[in-house]
C-alpha cells in the first residue's frame, strides 16, 4: 500500500469539504477551536455508593411482593431479591419477579416520546418531551374549545401498575376539566358484589392465618401460578393436618397438590355449592345457632334447598358424581375450621356473582364466617385508605361536564368492560381522544377487532407504556414510563395486609417519566399555552408526594408514626385475624343476608339460587378458557427475553380424546374460531383439560400477533355494578370450534 500520508498529501478532498464535514457534523469545535458545540460529555463528578433500596412489585397480583433492589456504585440495578422483612412474601419472588433487571434494562424499552404518522403505520419518529406535550396540549385545548368541555377526552387506566402514585393518571385529566373515563374493573367485580350482597362488603382473613384451617377448598384459584407465596401457608396447613381440596375446570398445578380434586364443568360452581348445601342440611350438619342469630332469609333459602335442589341435578350440572359431592360436603361440614378460597376466574361468567353467593352460603350455613381458619375468602380493600393526593386536584373553575339533577357537573363514564362499543357510541359529545395508561386494551379487552375500530375512530390516541404492545401500535403518541425502580411509590395488596414503600433505586432510563412526572409536565405545558387550563401542580418532589399519601388513619392501621419508617421495613395492618369475627355485617339488616333485598332491587335473584349458565350455540361446541398464565401478568413479562426463553410460545391445551376426534396431533397448528374472530396456536395434548374444553393463557408475546381476545365477546357478568360501577366480563363463557390448520 502506498504510504497513507503521501496519499493524503495529494488528497482529493478539499479543505472546504473537510470544514463542511466538521461543521455539519456539529463538530466545529474539532477543527476550528470553537467550543460552542454542546457535547455529550462533561467533567466527571463522583459516582454513587453501592446501595440497596426497598421496592415493591406493583403488579395486579395477590402477592405485591416486598423487594430489595441492589444498585452498584455505578448507579446500575444489579439484582432484585425478595425482602426478608416482608412477612407475607418472606424474601422470595416469583418467576416474573426474578426477571425485573432483564425488564428494566431491556433494549426494547420505549426510550423517548415518539410520534407515529400515520397511526398504525409503524412510521415512528422521536420527538422531544416539549413537542409531545405541545401536540397533546394543543389537541386537548382544541377539543375543549370545539365542544366547550373536556368530555370528548376519554381515559382508560387500570391495573398495569397498582402503586398509589399512579392515581396521578386520573389526576392529570381531572385537573383539566370534566372528562370521560372507563369505569369498572374487568377482573373481579361480580364476586365483590356477591360478597357485598351477602355480608355488606368484602373483607378477608389474614391470608397468613390460612395455616390454621383443617379443611381448605381452593375453589377456582391457582396460587401455584398466580399467588405463589400463598402456597407456603397452604403447605404449612397441610403439614399441620389440613386437607386440601381443589375445585377447578383445569387440573392446575395447585390441583396437583390437592388431597381431593374436582374437575367441575365451568360456570356450574353454584350447582356444586347448592348440592353440598342440600346434603349438609339434610344431614343436619348446618349451624342452626349461627343461622338463627346472624343470618337473614334462612327459612326461605332452606325451603329452596329442600324443595328445589337435588343431588342428581347438581351432579348432572357439574359433571361430578353424587358420591363426590357427598364426600366434599361431608368433609367440609364435619371438619372444623373449614375455609373456602374463591378465585376470580370462577366469577367471569354470566352467573359468576350468583355462583360466588352460593359458595359464600356454604360458609354461612356451616357457621364458618368470622372464624379463624374458616370463612369464604375472596379479596379486600381494607388497607387502601390513602389520601390519593395525587388525584386531588379539581377541574378549573367554569369547567363543564355532565349536568346532574342538582345542577352540578361531573365526569362521564363509559363501561370499561364494554369499552370499544361504548366509546364509539358516545354522542353529544363524541369521544375524540384517548389517554391510555397502566392498561393495554389492545391485547386485554374483549373483542379485539372492535377495540381496533374504536382506536381508529379517534382524533388522537396517547399511550403511556414501557413496551410497544398492541395498544401502542395503535397510538399517535407514545410516552415512555418508568419501571418501579425508577420512581417512588406506595404499595398495598388486595390479598395480604402489608404496606411497602417503593424507593426510587435508579434514575429513569432514557427519557422515561413516571405518571406523576407526566402529570406535572403536562400541566406546565397546558398552562403555558392557556394559563389556568390545568390545576395540577407543575413540579414537585416525588418522595414528598409519596409521603403526602399517608394520614393518621393509615398510620394507626399499620402501627407506624411516620411513613419513612417503611424504608427500614414493610408494615402489616393491625386488622383482624378472621374477617367478620364480630359478626357485625354491614348489610342493610346487619346480618348475613341469604335473602338480599338489595340484590332483588338490582334485578337479581334475592337468594343464592342457581342461575343457568350460558349455553353454547351448536356450531361452537367447545368452551375456550383463557385464564392467567404462569409466565406473565396479563400483557406484562412474557415479552422479556428471559421469559421468552422459558416459555417461547402460547400452546392450546387440548384433551387427547378431543384431539383424536379432530385429527389433531401434538404440535399441530390449530385454528380456534367463532363468529367474532380466531386465534391460531400450537396444540399441546394433555389431560389437564376436559374433553369439551380447550385452554390457553392470555398474554402478549414478543413480536407476536397472538391475542385470545379476538374470540372473546364483551358479554357482561351478572354482577359488579355496586362495588365497581359496572358488571364484570364473562371472559370464560367463550365457545368456539377448532380445526387443524
Amino acid at each position, binding site marked *: *500500500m502506498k504510504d*497513507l*500520508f*503521501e*496519499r*493524503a*498529501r495529494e*488528497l*482529493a*478532498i478539499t479543505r472546504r*469539504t*473537510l470544514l*463542511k*464535514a*466538521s461543521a*455539519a*457534523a*456539529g*463538530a466545529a469545535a*474539532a*477543527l476550528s477551536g470553537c467550543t460552542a458545540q454542546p*457535547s*455529550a*460529555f*462533561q*467533567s*466527571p*463528578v463522583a459516582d454513587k455508593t453501592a446501595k440497596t433500596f426497598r421496592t415493591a412489585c406493583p403488579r395486579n397480583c395477590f402477592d405485591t411482593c416486598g423487594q430489595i433492589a441492589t444498585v*452498584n456504585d*455505578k*448507579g*446500575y*440495578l444489579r439484582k432484585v431479591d425478595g425482602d426478608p422483612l416482608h412477612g407475607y412474601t418472606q424474601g422470595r419472588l416469583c418467576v416474573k419477579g426474578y426477571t425485573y*433487571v*432483564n425488564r428494566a*434494562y*431491556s*433494549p*426494547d*424499552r*420505549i*426510550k*423517548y416520546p*415518539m410520534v407515529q404518522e400515520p397511526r398504525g403505520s*409503524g*412510521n*415512528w*419518529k*422521536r420527538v422531544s418531551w416539549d413537542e409531545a406535550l405541545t401536540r397533546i396540549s394543543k389537541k386537548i385545548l382544541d377539543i375543549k374549545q370545539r365542544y366547550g368541555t373536556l368530555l370528548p377526552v376519554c381515559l382508560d387506566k387500570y391495573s398495569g401498575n397498582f402503586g398509589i402514585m399512579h392515581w396521578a393518571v386520573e389526576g392529570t385529566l381531572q385537573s383539566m376539566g370534566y372528562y370521560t373515563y372507563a369505569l369498572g374493573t374487568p377482573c373481579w367485580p361480580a364476586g365483590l358484589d356477591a360478597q357485598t350482597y351477602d355480608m355488606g362488603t368484602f373483607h378477608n382473613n389474614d391470608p397468613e392465618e390460612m395455616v390454621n384451617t383443617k379443611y381448605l377448598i381452593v375453589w377456582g384459584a391457582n396460587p401455584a401460578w398466580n399467588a405463589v407465596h400463598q402456597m407456603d401457608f397452604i403447605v404449612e396447613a397441610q403439614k399441620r393436618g389440613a386437607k386440601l381440596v381443589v375445585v377447578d375446570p383445569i387440573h392446575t398445578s395447585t390441583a396437583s397438590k390437592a388431597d381431593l380434586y374436582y374437575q367441575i364443568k365451568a360456570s356450574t360452581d353454584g350447582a356444586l355449592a347448592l348440592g353440598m348445601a342440600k346434603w349438609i342440611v339434610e344431614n343436619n350438619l348446618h349451624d342452626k345457632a349461627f343461622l338463627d342469630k346472624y343470618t337473614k332469609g334462612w327459612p326461605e333459602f332452606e325451603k329452596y334447598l329442600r324443595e328445589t335442589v337435588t343431588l342428581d341435578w347438581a351432579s348432572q350440572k357439574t359433571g361430578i358424581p353424587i358420591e363426590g359431592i357427598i364426600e366434599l360436603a361431608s368433609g367440609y361440614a364435619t371438619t372444623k375450621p373449614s375455609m373456602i378460597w374463591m378465585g376470580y376466574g370462577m366469577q367471569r361468567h354470566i352467573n359468576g356473582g350468583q355462583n360466588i353467593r352460593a359458595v359464600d352460603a356454604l360458609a354461612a350455613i356451616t357457621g364458618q364466617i368470622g372464624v379463624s381458619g374458616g370463612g369464604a375468602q375472596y379479596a379486600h380493600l381494607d388497607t387502601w385508605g390513602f389520601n390519593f393526593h395525587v388525584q386531588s386536584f379539581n377541574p378549573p373553575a367554569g369547567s363543564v361536564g355532565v349536568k346532574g339533577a342538582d345542577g352540578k357537573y361531573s365526569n362521564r363514564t363509559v363501561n370499561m368492560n364494554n369499552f370499544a362499543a361504548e366509546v364509539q357510541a358516545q354522542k353529544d359529545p363524541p369521544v375524540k381522544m384517548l389517554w391510555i395508561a397502566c392498561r393495554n386494551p389492545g391485547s386485554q379487552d374483549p373483542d379485539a377487532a372492535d377495540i381496533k375500530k374504536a382506536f381508529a375512530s379517534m382524533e388522537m390516541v396517547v399511550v403511556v407504556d414501557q413496551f*410497544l404492545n398492541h395498544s*401502542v401500535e395503535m397510538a399517535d403518541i*407514545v410516552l*415512555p414510563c418508568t419501571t418501579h425502580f425508577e420512581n417512588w411509590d406506595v404499595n398495598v395488596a388486595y390479598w395480604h395486609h402489608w404496606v411497602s414503600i417503593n424507593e426510587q433505586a435508579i*434514575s*429513569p432510563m*432514557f*427519557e422515561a417519566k413516571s405518571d406523576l412526572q407526566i402529570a406535572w409536565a403536562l400541566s406546565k405545558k397546558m398552562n403555558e399555552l392557556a394559563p389556568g387550563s390545568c390545576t395540577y401542580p407543575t413540579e414537585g418532589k416525588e418522595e414528598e408526594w409519596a409521603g403526602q399519601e399517608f394520614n393518621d388513619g393509615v398510620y394507626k392501621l399499620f402501627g407506624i408514626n411516620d411513613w419513612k419508617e417503611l424504608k427500614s421495613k414493610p408494615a402489616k395492618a393491625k386488622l383482624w385475624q378472621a374477617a367478620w369475627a364480630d359478626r357485625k355485617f354491614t348489610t342493610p339488616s346487619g346480618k348475613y343476608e341469604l335473602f338480599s333485598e338489595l340484590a332483588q332491587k338490582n334485578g337479581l335473584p334475592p337468594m343464592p339460587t342457581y342461575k343457568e349458565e350460558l349455553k353454547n350455540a351448536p356450531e361452537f361446541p367447545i368452551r375456550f378458557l383463557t385464564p392467567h398464565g404462569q409466565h406473565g401478568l396479563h400483557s406484562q413479562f412474557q415479552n422479556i*427475553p428471559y421469559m421468552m426463553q422459558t416459555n417461547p410460545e402460547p400452546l392450546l391445551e387440548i384433551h387427547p380424546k378431543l384431539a383424536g376426534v379432530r385429527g389433531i396431533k401434538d404440535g399441530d397448528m390449530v385454528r380456534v374460531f367463532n363468529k367474532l374472530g380466531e386465534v391460531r396456536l400450537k396444540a399441546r395434548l394433555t389431560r389437564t383439560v376436559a374433553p369439551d374444553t380447550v385452554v390457553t393463557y392470555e398474554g402478549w408475546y*414478543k*413480536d407476536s400477533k397472538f391475542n385470545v381476545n379476538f374470540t372473546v365477546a364483551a358479554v357482561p357478568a351478572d354482577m359488579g355494578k355496586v362495588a365497581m360501577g359496572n358488571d364484570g366480563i364473562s371472559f370464560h363463557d367463550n365457545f368456539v370450534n377448532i380445526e387443524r390448520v
Partner: protein
Amino acid sequence: MADAGVVAFLETRLALFFLLQRAYAAPIGAELSGTLRETAVAYGALLDLDLGGPLPDAGPPDEPEFFRLFVGPGRLVAPPYESVYLSPEGVLMQEETEAVRAFYLAYGLEARAKYTEPDDALSLELEFYSRLQKDALAAYQAGDGAEAARLLAGQREFHQEHLRRWVEPFSQRVLDGSANLFYRSLATVTREVVQAEEQVLVSIAAVLA
C-alpha cells in the same frame, strides 16, 4: 514539525468519525449525508477501500428507518449499545457499559446522561473516539509527541477493547434487518472503517514514533 500529509490524513479520518457519530446520534439530512459520502469516498481512497460507492448520491436517509433500526419504540433491529452484543444477558447497563464508563473517566470525561443513557451507545463511543483523535491531532500539531502518543494509545485500547468487538455484529444486524440503501451503506462504511483502524493505528503510531 507537523507533516502536512499526516495532518491531512488525520483530519480526514477525524471528519469521517465525527460524521459517523452524527449519523448514529439522529437522522441526518441530505446535505450531511452528501458530506458523509464525500468524506467516506476520500478516506476510502486513502485506504484502498470502496466506501463511497454504496452511499446513495442524493436524498436524505429515511427517518422512520433510523428509528426502526436504532431507537424504537418497538424491538430494535440493531440496538446501538455494546452490552447488547457482548454481555451474557444481552441487555443494557452491563459490565461492558461500566468498562466504557471507566475508560471515559480515565481520560477525564464522563457522559452527561451516564445514569439514564448507556455509556456504551455507539454515538457516544464514536464521539469519545473522535475526541481522542482530535486531541491527538492537536498535540501532534503542537509538537507534543508524548501527549499524541498517549492519546493514540488510548485510541488503540478503546478500539481493541470496545469498538472492534461489537461494531461487526452490530453492522451485521443492520445488514440483515434493513433494506434501506442508506443505512445498509452506513453499516458497511462503519464496519470497514472500524476494521481498518487495526492497520491505521499502526501506521499512525509509526509516524508519531
